[in-house]
């Protein structure tokens, strides 16, 4: 059916998107690679010189880099754990017959729609603040000493805030997948005398496996780049206790004006993300064939 004419028309229609994305992908990335080999500081314009791999060497041997890698992984894994386990539990709960299901759903998905800076500031000031926060008030109610979350457990606090934002995403996707489970299969399993637990392990969990994979992979892509939540709550601190790779590169570039070093860090972040993306692309590619 596709004639030569429609085919060239199709190409013309696709061209703008392809060219734009191609430019978006190649131009800045090529510049980052180029900068990463330069000694280039914005405070010393005109002093740029070729630096070989020294930026990479500097970045990779900086103790802050190892903190950042550790914190990046802690945020990704911590948030994934909370959201996937919590998401499965919530999805199972919301799948049950109840009164006002639609309203509960609306309440549960709300945090995902909140902009990151608002979410982070509301938690930081109104809940986690050791003097005026609601948590401090609750602690005092029980005669406990208020806990200064952001000073004493900065990484955990960031993980909590980010998990609150992503729990709805996991829940919503797992619930959607759960609702596509064949009702008759569940009934058949029940008739055969399968306990609720074995129905969950042998029927529900395998059915959810694809949705769980999708949740993990998509969240990982976003969680590797958590930024605003750190910027407005802890600013990466105290020290580098809550600095992730994204924040470290940002600080290197826009606070220390070290273009070369920041670029090397950026390239390292790209490489790490690509390793994750490799698996995600394969997974989504399979769905496309199905």
């Amino acid at each position, binding site marked *: 059916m596709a004639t030569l004419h429609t085919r060239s028309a199709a190409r013309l229609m696709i061209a703008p998107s392809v060219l734009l994305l191609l430019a978006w992908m190649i131009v*800045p990335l090529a510049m980052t690679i180029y900068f990463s080999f330069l000694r280039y500081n914005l405070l010393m314009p005109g002093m740029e010189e070729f630096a070989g791999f020294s930026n990479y060497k500097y970045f990779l041997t900086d103790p802050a880099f190892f903190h950042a890698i550790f914190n990046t992984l802690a945020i990704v894994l911590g948030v994934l754990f909370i959201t996937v386990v919590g998401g499965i539990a919530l999805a199972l709960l*919301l799948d049950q017959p109840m009164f006002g299901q639609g309203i509960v759903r609306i309440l549960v998905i709300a945090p995902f*729609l*909140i902009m990151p800076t608002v979410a982070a500031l*509301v938690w930081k000031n109104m809940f986690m603040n050791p003097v005026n926060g609601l948590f401090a008030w609750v602690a005092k109610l029980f005669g406990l000493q208020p806990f200064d979350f952001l000073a004493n457990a900065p990484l955990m606090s960031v993980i909590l805030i980010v998990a609150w934002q992503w729990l709805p995403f996991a829940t919503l996707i797992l619930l959607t997948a759960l609702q596509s489970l064949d009702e008759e299969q569940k009934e058949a399993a029940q008739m055969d005398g399968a306990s609720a637990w074995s129905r969950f392990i042998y029927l529900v969990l395998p059915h959810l496996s694809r949705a769980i994979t999708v949740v993990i992979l998509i969240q990982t892509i976003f969680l590797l780049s958590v930024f605003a939540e750190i910027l407005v709550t802890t600013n990466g601190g105290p020290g580098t206790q809550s600095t992730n790779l994204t924040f470290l590169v940002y600080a290197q570039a826009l606070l220390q004006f070290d273009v070369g070093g920041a670029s090397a860090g950026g390239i390292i972040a790209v490489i790490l993300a690509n390793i994750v993306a490799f698996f995600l692309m394969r997974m989504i590619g399979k769905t496309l064939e199905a």
Partner: protein
Amino acid sequence: MARNVSTRRKIVVTVVAWTIGILIFFPILWTFLTSFKTEAEAIASPPSLFFFDWTTENYHEVQSRSNYFLHFMNSVVVSFGSTLIGLIIAIPSAWAMAFSPTKRTKDVLMWMLSTKMMPSVGVLVPMYLLFRNTGLLDTRTGLVIVLTLINLPIIIWMLYTYFKEIPGEILEAARMDGASLSKEIIYVLTPMAIPGIASTLLLNIILAWNEAFWTLNLSAAKAAPLTAFIASYSSPEGLFYAKLSAASTMAIAPILILGWFSQKQLVRGLTFGAVK
């Protein structure tokens, strides 16, 4: 059998689910309530949930002190602008890939998606310098350009999965009835494509409205959308809970409402059609 769930069980599930739902929603509710308190009441101990002197003073204050409306309009312009431009570029592409696919269509789609995997921080430095040198730093135009580019792959993917569901037979039937290409597009395809386009529009406005990496790094005072404006409350001087709450409530309300209307599309769009 599974249908006659006992009423008692249903009531227990209802209580548990509502409790958890309200707990998850509580920070948003609390923000909303605090926005109507005075600064003194906002930090009062014990805090009061509903019984305080409701005042709308914070909303006026936020506007008069910081020109809130400017930042609100920045958000509107940037999110709608980037989404509309994205749609104009993406509709023909998604259309062509859905209706006259070639052997390479799948590869092109996968490649487009792969551009989304690049962490923003990998290109922060060159984008900042490019924007600084071209005068795009802290302009609405600059933000529209970046947000269009970062959301373009999602727009194309969402449209593609929707267009793919329009049955090809309908086109053939229209052709058999002697419809010309232009009539085919206006009377047959457009009405079937509009729901998909609308969902894509909605989801992308949400994503663009909440985007908080590029908006924070590439804007300052003039073009700062609400994401960046609210971030200015992170300074210690900005510890005004009631005003922070009022600014936050206005920033999140429109998107909350949009999001609640598009729950289903949210799942589909965010998983690139992998979960429907």
